[in-house]
């Protein structure tokens, strides 16, 4: 029974970690625990949050998408080019979203049709799209007109637009994963691909869709990042794949597939990472420390994931005989 208790604790780890970090930061910095800071946190984390939602879909099938940051960059570069050439905002954003879906579909095609490992495919695409975007931008930062940044601070019935986008993406993703056949079948694939194939699930279609969704989310995350930064620099979207994977895993999504959720999991993970970063800023910590602290937390999350998996495996180990008292 002690093992059962441990397993329960491991399952609740994201929430426990979230509360612990929030409590520590609140004690260390009086400014931290305030409504305005909380809202700020949500706005700042919106781009990563949306990308991490797409990543959660991919991770649930035991895949991975390393190309999300590059997709943001490539889509952003094209959109910026169109805007600066005087085209309408609507067209620019449409192109960016289209690019994201298209690039996701290419990932899906290579993984499903050519049967390549997701890790390799998306790693290669990371370099392809980053290279493509550097070529489009001629490695220069492209500054968007000032009025564009105002989208990021605009409000819809009193709520900042990024927060509206953030919330809608999470709501839709949560419904898709828990309430639609599509979502439940993704969990089935992640649990056991062989069984899923035997049961006759539309494996190829599902995987295709997952990478397309990840591409779409990368593009939407890219738009949010554009409105916050106001420019497309050669570093645009860098490390987003890392942060998105980290957020999902911190939120309890397993790298082994089949386990996890966007709500509350990935949401907690995203806020946790953002909280750590802005907490360190508030504490005037040495900037060189940020990546080290973030990496340590992520390693910890993966460690939790692995021990959870080990316990699960032990619980489902086949027994050769049964004790009399168990009968």
């Amino acid at each position, binding site marked *: 029974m002690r093992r059962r208790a441990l397993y329960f604790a491991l399952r609740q780890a994201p929430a426990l970690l979230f509360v612990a970090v929030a409590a520590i930061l609140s004690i260390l910095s009086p400014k931290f625990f305030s409504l305005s800071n909380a809202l700020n946190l949500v706005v700042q984390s919106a781009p990563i949050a949306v990308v991490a939602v797409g990543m959660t879909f991919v991770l649930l099938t035991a895949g991975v998408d390393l190309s999300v940051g590059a997709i943001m960059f490539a889509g952003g570069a094209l959109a910026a080019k169109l805007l600066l050439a005087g085209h309408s905002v609507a067209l620019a954003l449409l192109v960016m979203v289209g690019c994201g879906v298209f690039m996701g579909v290419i990932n899906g095609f290579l993984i499903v049709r050519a049967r390549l490992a997701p890790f390799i495919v998306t790693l290669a695409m990371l370099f392809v799209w980053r290279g493509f975007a550097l070529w489009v931008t001629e490695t220069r930062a492209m500054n968007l007109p000032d009025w564009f940044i105002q989208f990021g601070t605009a409000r819809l019935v009193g709520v900042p637009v990024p927060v509206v986008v953030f919330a809608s993406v999470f709501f839709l993703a949560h*419904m898709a994963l828990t*309430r*639609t*056949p*599509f979502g*439940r*079948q993704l*969990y*089935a694939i*992640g*649990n*056991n691909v062989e*069984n*899923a194939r*035997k*049961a*006759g*699930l539309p494996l190829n279609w599902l995987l295709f869709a997952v990478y397309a969704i990840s591409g779409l989310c990368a593009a939407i995350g890219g738009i949010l990042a554009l409105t916050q930064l106001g420019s497309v620099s050669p570093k645009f979207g860098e490390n987003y794949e890392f942060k998105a994977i980290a957020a999902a895993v911190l939120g309890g999504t397993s790298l082994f597939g*089949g*386990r996890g959720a966007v709500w509350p999991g990935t949401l907690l993970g995203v806020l946790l990472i953002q909280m750590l970063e802005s907490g360190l800023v508030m504490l005037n910590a040495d900037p060189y420390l940020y990546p080290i602290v973030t990496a340590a937390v992520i390693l910890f999350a993966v460690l939790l994931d692995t021990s959870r998996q080990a316990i*699960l495996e032990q*619980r*489902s*180990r*086949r*027994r*050769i*005989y*049964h*004790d*009399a008292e*168990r*009968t």
Partner: protein
Amino acid sequence: MNAALQFEGIDKSFGNVPVLRDVSFTVGAGRTLGLVGENGAGKSTLMNILGGNLRSDAGKMVLEDRPYEPAHPKDASRAGVAFIHQELNLFTNLSIAENLFVTGLPRTAGFLINRHSLHQRAAKLLEQVGLDLRPETKVENLSLGERQLVEIARALSFDARLIIFDEPTTSLSVRETEVLFSLMARLHDRGISMIYISHILEHVRRRCDDIVILRDGQVVGEGEAIEFSTARLVSLMVGREMNQLYPTRKKAAASTPALEVERVNEPGIVRDISFTLHHGEVLGIAGLMGAGRSELARILFGLDRYSSGEIRANGKPLIRSGPRQRIKHGMAFLTEDRRHEGLCLDASIADNLMLVALRDYTRSPLRLVQSGRCRQSIDRLREEVLLSPRAHDKQPAKTLSGGNQQKVVLAKWLLARPSVLILDEPTRGVDVGAKFELYRIILELADAGTAVLVISSEIEELTGICDRILVMSQGKVHAELNRDKFDRERLLAAALPREART
């Protein structure tokens, strides 16, 4: 008698080893047929053909008067043939209801799942299999017995009319087994045909209307269950002529213990295992699949943990960790999985042969390999084990046939001379000619003083090469026989699991 399923002249070979030969029998409509046979008799192959995982070389199947040629597992389930395996095919992270309807989840007008209708339909199926659980319970929280009932409910959900149970009770408790049997009785009353495969012959006789006995890929007996006593079933399963020659020992075993095992326990896996293996002795472990033999070997070699007991190698107690210490004490282990664990497939034959003993072929101070001496040893070894002369030393090991690969795996130990050698299924998938050579190598090692522990599913092979045989069943040693007492029927009888003790 109406037929639910007919096998007509099914043949199947793997490579040039025939596995099924002209298998014909009929499963009567609404009847339960027990299929029994030793390991390797061809039961699984036949069921794989029935389930669309394999194609037969010749012969045909007729399902309810229509020709039946499944090319894929999906075809089988569409035709109403369902399998309940030992390894269950459920998604543990989904609820019972989701598992039952994973390919056809009911929807509301939009995209969303209609949970109300889903749970209602699931509850109906759960009631049919007598499982008193809420449909939204996650499968990972169920016991193995409950999971099996869910699997049966899934079979019912797509109107299975023929259900195959493959060793369904192996991981069930006594009570769960009874629940399963009463459900099978209800299915029987509803007119569903079943094939029941089990090593527990009492169960087969009790649960089945008809019995078919397979031996070496052929039907050697069939009839109504009441015609067979357990003893008759055993003799039909075994009754094979000795057709393999065995090399002879040159030396008798010493009386000095090499490996002492005392009351080793691991809950749910093995219990109370005690034996002593002497230098120069060949000790066999017989038993059926899933008796815990390979698990015991893994524990002895330090790959899995054990909760109590003691293991001593050459008189020194082995603490409970890792294979490294075992290897230092002169132990070696050849796993069942030769291709992945015993051999470096891409490395050359020569490199594989020298793998273990290479340290002894180096010269100080730089520890460079003395290739001249190596070559001499390689040539000597090749001659000793009669490795196919067509194979070149530099050729990668994966290009060899199964028998020659295993010769390489074993021959490397001739150089290293371990004091304890554990072999798990050393001749699986090896043709008859190569088997003799493998036996010769094993006995030669024993003559040189190595203590050999051989796990094998072929009782005949064990009686051929062993000095002594332990018989395991349900994680326990049930019998110990010395060479002069070897008797195939007694061995098999001891290996069959008893009807669960209460």
